[in-house]
């Protein structure tokens, strides 16, 4: 039998001898590391989810003309904006975007009113390609429009009793537009009350070539905050205002930060308390085993060899606790993410490393004091039973 295998054998025997205490220590280590793992998994999953959500909600920045007033997210018709029209120069915006070199995607919008059956109808000119990229959650019955076609919001279509395939004739300052409805869109938002058509044809119809009312941007926020990105862009735009969309992005970012902070705090508390309980248990063990330690020293074990035995014990406990903690933690994370946050946990084997690391660290750190006691123990006195 080699020395190493004997050492492991010895450690196992010692741990089995004090089964109750070993189980207690294992439980504490598994608990602590499982919590750390679970919190890690949850915050990782949330981070990923938030990034996804930011993408799903489309734009996170909006460029608006300086004088215009527009509340994003407040649905309904808002003729006030149109009665005091203010526009963005399409070219200026594009130049600014190139110069600021913001990473991300954008969509250009022009909103206006056209007459339909003797009443004003709110219409929006868009590039459908951009729409499909930026707003993938648009539910479309029918198909995306080709030339001389349009898409109508579902509320509006219901009100006007129109369905896909119907023709609409819109009157504006110039000659009337005849469009075929290729599909009906429903989003649950203000889009349901609008008619969407190709940006260029609306610009022509309203005689507003090269003008926009709004540009929505989907900027990836990797690392930098959205506010900073907005500020960068604002510098290049003198006649327009860059606003953050007060939609999900900001709130969920804030929420994520708060949740992460809370998790860090909880983890800290758990780790500290688990560490001190490890210290307590290990101290008792060492105290109880002082006679045995003295004996080993009397038999010719050096201080370092004794230290090695106890370090191996702690490491073994830490390892086992960490592995158990990983599975337990994954379970907890699964439960939390399913029941509280309604998202699926991103469990990767990398977290086993985190779990084992936390548990090993705790076990070794917690038994540091007791190990110093082992190191210092005087064989003569401990054998005499002092």
């Amino acid at each position, binding site marked *: 039998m*080699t*020395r190493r295998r004997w050492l492991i054998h010895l450690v196992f025997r010692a741990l089995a001898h004090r089964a109750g205490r070993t189980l207690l220590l294992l439980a504490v280590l598994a608990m602590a590391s499982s919590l750390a793992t679970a919190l890690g998994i949850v915050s990782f999953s949330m981070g990923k989810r938030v990034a996804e959500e930011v993408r799903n909600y489309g734009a996170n920045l909006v460029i608006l003309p300086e004088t215009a007033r527009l509340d994003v997210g407040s649905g309904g018709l808002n003729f006030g904006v149109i009665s005091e029209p203010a526009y963005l120069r399409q070219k200026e915006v594009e*130049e600014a975007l*190139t*110069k*600021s*070199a913001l990473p991300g995607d954008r969509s250009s919008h022009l909103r206006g009113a056209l007459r339909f059956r003797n009443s004003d109808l709110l219409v929006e000119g868009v590039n459908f390609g951009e729409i499909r990229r930026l707003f993938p959650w648009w539910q479309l019955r029918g198909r995306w429009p080709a030339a001389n076609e349009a898409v109508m919001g579902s509320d509006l279509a219901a009100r006007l009793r129109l369905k896909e395939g119907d023709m609409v004739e819109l009157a504006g300052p110039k000659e009337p537009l005849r469009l075929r409805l290729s599909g009906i869109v429903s989003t649950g938002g203000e889009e349901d009350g609008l008619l969407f058509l190709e940006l260029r044809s609306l610009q022509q119809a309203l005689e507003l070539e090269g003008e926009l009312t709004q540009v929505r941007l989907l900027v990836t926020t990797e690392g930098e905050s959205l506010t900073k990105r907005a500020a960068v862009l604002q510098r290049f735009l003198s006649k327009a205002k860059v606003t953050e969309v007060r939609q999900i992005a900001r709130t969920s970012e804030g929420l994520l930060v708060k949740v992460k902070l809370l998790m860090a705090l909880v983890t800290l508390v758990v780790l500290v308390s688990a560490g001190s309980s490890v210290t307590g248990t290990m101290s008792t063990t060492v105290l109880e085993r002082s006679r045995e330690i003295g004996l080993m020293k009397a038999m010719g074990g050096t201080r370092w060899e004794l230290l090695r035995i106890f370090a191996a014990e702690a490491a073994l406990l830490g390892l086992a606790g960490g592995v158990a903690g990983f599975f337990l933690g994954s379970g907890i994370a699964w439960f939390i993410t399913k029941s509280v946050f309604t998202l699926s946990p991103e469990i990767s084997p990398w977290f086993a490393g985190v779990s084992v690391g936390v548990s090993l660290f705790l076990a070794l750190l917690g038994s540091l004091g007791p190990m110093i006691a082992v190191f210092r123990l005087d064989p003569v006195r401990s054998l005499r039973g002092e």
Partner: protein
Amino acid sequence: MQLVFKLIPQLIAWTVMVLLLLRGMPGRRGAVLISAVTGFSLGVAGYLLLSRLFPVTLPLGIIRSAVGGSFFLLWSVAVAALYRSTVRDFPLLRVERLVGTIYCAWGAPLLTGMVAGGIGASGLPRLDNSVLQLLAPLLLLLAGALLVLGARSAEQRLTSSLGVTPSAFLAALVALLLFSSSSSILLDLFAPLSMKVMKGTHDFVHQFMESILIPDHVFIRSAIWGYIGFLFGKEVGFWGGMVIWFTPALLIALAIRLEPLPSVAHIRQGAQRRRLLADAIRTKQYRLVIPALALVALAAAAYQSSFPNVEYWDPKPLAVTATPAGEIFIPRKGEVELEDGRLHKYLYKQGGKEVRFFVLLTPAGKLTVDLDACAICKPDGYGQSEGMVLCYYCKTLIPLDTVGKPGGCNPVPVPFTERGDGVHLDALTLVNSWSRTVQSTTSSKGGK
């Protein structure tokens, strides 16, 4: 001051090398010490002399080939060591028989010292002040000699059980040489090695594809292309380089592990038998320390090579736009001083394409406009250091005089017209040139 910090790792490596030499050749302390100091002085002097008389590439090339050659030697010794540890009656290698002779005690420190001295001298900066220029090598010499003495006293304090086998000794020496040479990007061997591996794989796969997989996409499902694409990646070069880099030291460690324990069956007293066995195991474990040290040094060398500790001038690209006629104009004087001899990077976006290019005034006094990419490597771009630009991908150095000439890893030049107010480029040509270059160097996926 900065110079001192730059040289510290090399001087430490030199100390450890002397320590190893002393430990590897016990009983010949005097010879080792004298020849080590002599070698170091010769190395420093030789480097300075050669770099004065010839272009600097000559002494650098000599050092590189010396270090590279020692690495080859290490490989053969490692294989031999492993073979011998499994096959008992293998005749001693000639090289190993030399270890322990008086020739080795004089020769090994001399050669090691020369290479180490050369590497140290190459790290000295060019100074304008002639007094300092003389003083710096002298200081280096002094430090080298003092460290030899330091290594001697350290070696005497080291536990006597730390034994060295000849192969492990060589492994650690070579590893330390590689480590100190990796501190300079001009001498580094790991980056060229991984580059070679990548190129080799690339060529092999290419030929394999062409001979077997014509016509394209007939036999192979698209998922497979993913794996084949991986073979072209930088990762293959890196990991392949790692394997070649670490294998010899690992083989030597394995050889030491596989060495049989002494036969103790004939000893009757149990305690004595066990003591002998335990001592043999301990000796073996101690012998593994030196190969472990070699592995650490090799890892440090690879790390230094991958994250070189040199500061490059690398400005953030400025975004530029083209006029409706498709012309990009960069003013001679404006936001940036175009003719200050430094690299100026620009970014042009058109549609989904982004083109990086730079404008530079060469030492010959001519402006040149080039892509921030070369015809061979992935477009990781360039950084500027003293008198050179460096390709971030393959770590090749390109002298400033040759920037603007096409070929190799030089930045791909772009046609432009220079007028009084600045530089005018054709956006379309730029974009096309970028697409052509980048397409051929990044996505070789799909064979042809």
